[in-house]
């Protein structure tokens, strides 16, 4: 799992690529939190376009991102969700909690 980071003004874009399972999730969460702490963004965009596999570990990461952004008074958006990951999010009903484009 790799995370590429771009910050413009107070918008933080994190582009995730690779497999997001339990094995990869801890490091991914740590990287995401470090990026949030450094940028203190008003808006966080998680781009899942490069994610080749995701299980419920990815849901835990998205929920963590949501909690962090709520604590900052900011917004979270998730975009470019591949089909396999979208089926996981749909099965869990996550689209009721998080904005997915």
């Amino acid at each position: 799992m790799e995370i590429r980071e771009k910050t413009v003004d107070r918008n933080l874009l994190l582009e995730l690529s690779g497999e997001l399972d339990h094995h990869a999730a801890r490091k991914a969460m740590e990287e995401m939190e470090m990026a949030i702490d450094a940028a203190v963004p008003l808006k966080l965009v998680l781009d899942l376009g490069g994610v080749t596999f995701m299980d419920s570990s990815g849901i835990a990461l998205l929920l963590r991102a949501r909690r962090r952004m709520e604590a900052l008074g900011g917004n979270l958006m998730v975009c470019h969700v591949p089909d396999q990951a979208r089926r996981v999010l749909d099965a869990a009903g996550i689209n009721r909690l998080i904005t997915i484009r």
Partner: protein
Amino acid sequence: MKTSNYINMEFLSRSSNEAFARVAVACFAAQLDPTLDEIGDIKTAVSEAVTNAIVHAYPDELGKISLKARIYEGNVLELVIKDWGRGIPDVEQARQPLFTTGGEERSGMGFTIMESFMDRLSVRSRVGKGTTVTMRKRISVRATGAK
């Protein structure tokens, strides 16, 4: 039901084996000519079951996980994931959406996803003895040339 093919494997509860398990099962299931969605669902269900064993059955130690995949006549895939770890005190509670004892790193959606992606899910567990998760999915039969 008559078995037409099977594989048995055993591996240590290291998280690096999650990817191995789901890819191995996906390769075995490929002979049923599943759609991309079906193969994705199978890989996800395997990943959830194996992760549960790694995180919850053996939280403080490494242990043995067994994975059996069988193909029955009628294009039915059966997966049996077994551990000899701590066991689940209350299986019904564990199957509830968002229930987890795994902290913020877990979403509590593993069993919900397994149920959603497979046709049948059964969980047998005894505290101190281990847990066996059995899942079945019928793979749709596609007309030749319909890919």
